[in-house]
């Protein structure tokens, strides 16, 4: 499996496609996107990959993102790794991953060290408490925005699955693996059954 065979197998008829990026270009590009991305890197990743560098078309990007979204783990990390390896094999994946995670991990470690040293200072405590209240509000609004399509489609099954998972994890505090081992097969089976019913 030569690492450069997939792009060769799917030639994009796009005249503006530049040469595939080298390892340093991958590292730098992902470091930039990552450092720009307050509260989520995805927006910046799309802007960088599709609009700025034209390394992928919008459709290719959506396809790759969809794949990484249904696989477990941090989506943007998966996307970065798959993206890098598409151009330069495993080394490309590692270079892009190092760019995405390395520089912000250094920043976050410095912040953690400062917190351990000064975390008991009253003013800092109050500021962090305020930031975390607002950050939770942002998370809740993301959940709300993701829920809207389900409500609009009157997707009762989806809403019931959503509420059941919420109750199991948020209220009952059951372990995640146990909940998912039940919920994932069940949800896939229901979705499959509904689609078959819809098709016939």
């Amino acid at each position, binding site marked *: 499996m030569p690492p450069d065979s997939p792009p060769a197998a799917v030639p994009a008829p796009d005249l503006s496609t530049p040469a595939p990026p080298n390892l340093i270009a991958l590292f730098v590009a992902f470091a930039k996107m990552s450092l720009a991305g307050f509260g989520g890197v995805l927006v910046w990743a799309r802007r960088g990959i599709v609009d700025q560098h034209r390394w992928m078309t919008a459709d290719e990007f959506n396809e790759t993102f969809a794949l990484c979204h249904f696989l477990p783990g941090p989506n943007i990390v998966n996307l970065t790794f798959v993206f890098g390896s598409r151009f330069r094999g495993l080394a490309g994946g590692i270079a892009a991953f190092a760019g*995405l995670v390395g520089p912000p991990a250094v920043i976050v470690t410095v912040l953690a060290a400062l917190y351990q040293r000064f975390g008991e200072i009253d003013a800092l405590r109050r500021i962090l408490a*305020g930031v975390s209240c607002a950050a*939770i509000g942002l998370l809740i609004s993301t959940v709300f925005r993701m829920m809207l399509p389900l409500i609009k489609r009157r997707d009762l099954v989806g809403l019931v699955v959503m509420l059941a998972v919420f109750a199991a994890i948020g209220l009952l505090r059951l372990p995640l693996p146990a909940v998912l081992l039940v919920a994932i097969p069940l949800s896939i089976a229901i979705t499959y059954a509904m689609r078959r019913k819809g098709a016939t």
Partner: protein
Amino acid sequence: MNSDANPLLALASTFGLMSLFAVGGASTAIPEMHRVAVDVQHWLTDRQFADIYAISQLSPGPNVLIVTLIGYSVAGIAGGLVATLAMCVPTAVLAYYVSRVLRRSSDARWPTLIQAALVPLSIGLMGASGFVLARTSDRTVAAALVTAGAAVLASATRLNPGWLLLAGGCLGFVGLIG
């Protein structure tokens, strides 16, 4: 405290396993992180967990870096490194192989079916994240109002999230949150 076990090993196995169950991204695994780090392993207190979440939101980069912070508070720089790699590498390798297989197969129906089935699951998990975090952070009425206000503003407007975090920090600094 699970002091007989090597903390790095505990971090690696905890987050390596957790990553495989983090459907829909790192923020869906926050209740599980809280359960393991606060309730099971006693690595952090409730308050420290809330602070770490705030720090992770204040810094640039992917959401997964909250894991780096948990690892750092358990075992320093090595802990941060081990936790981060354990959370990222197994699923990245999985994604790499699955993407190679899918590019060669023409049957694109399964991914969309699985994805459709997983969307409500990940919304439920993220809702639980918000709930668990709110319970650790919003201990006063004022704090709950700030969370609610940020949620409404972020849903109704296209305001840059950074401004809301900054506003929350200012309200906290002047002592409104308590």
